[in-house]
């Protein structure tokens, strides 16, 4: 991945074209167009119910779109299960509620998918898992069960679990929203160090400090539409739309 960074401007990693999605009659995503280049860090924000989570969940087909194209790493998402599996292997996801597997140890959480999906030998998968657990600074918890860890530790395990599949793209769906304030920092630190390594990142979050620090682009969504997309500097200091200004005044107002 890192060799291709030089021509990052032309190397499209995710391409969403004229994408629409409905839940029954409810039009949740309206004509979404988004191109993400390799290595780009994107922060997506917006009021609740604006469709930001739904949009990133369409990228690994946890949600199905009804119109338009989504192309991830050259593979188009259709009903073809092979394509879906291929995309999911390359796209890691971190959830608001961690979604660790409670009946497996931390180490087993991290090795299950590499062993069964990537067909990596067990010993190698465990070595990789320990490496990533060290990266998120909890190797000593490897043989515990998720229920024995704090929320922040669980979320870091969830990040390590995704990384063990060696994805090209990481999706974060409000990774710090379910955490106690004192644990948010440890998760954000992990995400910042990940960003510095050049992985492509899409992150739904309200942590504006994180956005300012690592994002190449901030996207603001409201009522299923992308309202504004800009560099963090422009986005925070010079928002273009009234809706964006209102949102920023509400979240930065105190």
């Amino acid at each position: 991945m890192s060799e291709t960074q030089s021509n990052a401007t032309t190397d499209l990693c995710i391409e969403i074209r004229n994408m629409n999605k409905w839940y029954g009659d409810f039009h949740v995503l309206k004509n979404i167009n988004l191109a993400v280049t390799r290595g780009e860090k994107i922060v997506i924000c917006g009021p609740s119910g604006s469709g930001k989570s739904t949009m990133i969940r369409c990228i690994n087909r946890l949600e199905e779109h009804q119109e338009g194209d989504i192309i991830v790493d050259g593979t188009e998402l259709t009903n073809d299960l092979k394509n879906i599996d291929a995309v999911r292997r390359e796209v890691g996801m971190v959830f608001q509620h961690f979604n660790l597997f409670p009946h497996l140890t931390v180490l087993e959480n991290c090795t299950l998918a590499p062993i069964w999906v990537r067909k990596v030998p067990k010993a190698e998968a465990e070595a990789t898992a320990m490496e990533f657990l060290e990266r998120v600074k909890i190797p000593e918890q490897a043989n515990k069960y998720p229920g024995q860890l704090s929320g922040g530790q669980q979320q870091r395990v969830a990040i390590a679990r995704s990384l063990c599949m060696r994805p090209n793209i990481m999706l974060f769906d409000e990774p710090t929203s379910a955490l106690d304030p004192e644990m948010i920092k440890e998760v954000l630190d992990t995400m910042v160090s990940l960003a510095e390594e050049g992985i492509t990142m899409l992150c739904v979050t309200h942590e504006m400090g994180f956005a300012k620090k690592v994002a190449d682009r901030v996207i603001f969504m409201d009522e299923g539409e992308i309202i504004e997309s800009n560099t963090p500097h422009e986005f925070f200091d010079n928002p273009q739309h009234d809706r964006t200004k209102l949102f920023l005044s509400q979240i930065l107002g105190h």
Partner: protein
Amino acid sequence: MTKETYAPGTHPSLPPPKNTVGVIYWLKENLFSSATNSIVTLVSIYLLYLALPSAINWLFIDATYVGTTRKDCAPDGACLAFIGERFNLFVYGFYPAELRWRVNLATLLLVVAGAAVLWDKIPARKQMLKFAMVYPFIGAWLLTGGFGLEPVGTHLFGGLMLTLTIGVTGIVFSLPLGILLALGRQSDLPIIKYFCIGFIEFIRGVPLITLLFVASTMLSYFLPPGTTFDLLMRVLIMVTLFASAYMAEVIRGGLQALPKGQLEAAESLGLNYGQAMRFIILPQALKISIPGIVNTFIGLYKDSTLVIVIGLLDPLGIGRASVADSDWLGLSTEVYLFVAVFFFISCFGMARYSLYLENKLNTGHKR
């Protein structure tokens, strides 16, 4: 009493106060916590005092253990000699006496196979599990004969071995069938989904006795004339199908109790449907369902007494026949007590095992 004082941040953890631990405290808290509670406790003790000595006298002290006729039995005690006299009938039914070693061997191997499945610390478990996989065939071969063994008709099966045959077969086959039905009921494919729903609702809507009658009489109308389909085989199929419908609903409850995020996490890691079910969803759903699953097992095991209506004699059936024996009149208490004890031991065993399993699988995520 003076309290020690500690500077902020230096308070050590202290043991609980003396009057909140120990036997006296337990008695006070649990048996005599209020006036009503004390009265209930005392009345209970009085009732036990009235009932226990005479029951013990009847069952142990005045009981007759050895004897060959009704006259050998003491008038005021239990006539357990009768049970001893009929013991082989209770255990083997009408299985030919000279071939009973085959039943014994099958039971012994069942214990070995069962230990491999139920107890994960057994030595060489992998090999043992392979043995457990082929055991049903070995067991069936030993019991019914053929392939070099003298054949024994299933109409000779009876007593405890019949209960075990029905119970074990039902338990072994209804669990996987129930899992498939539960997953099928949630399928996106309408044909599979509606077939599973129809099957489950039909079986649940019909009493087991009806199904057993269907098994014993109606099936022969539907099958081509001349085909003989073993009666016990029909019973086994019906009991298994019956239990599997209940099992499916119990497991569906477990599946629905899982947060949606578990499947999403599995999918986002690239696991396919089969892998997600096998490694993530089913282990958790089955764990949640253990009480219900074992409940269904116990129900199935006890329902096996219903085979009496189609002429198969399980321990209860043998008991009823024995009570009617004119040489041994008036022994229904002893006989039914014996049958009850037999069923209680088996069912209580299952219940305790399910508790053990729940504890073992508890990984502390219920904090």
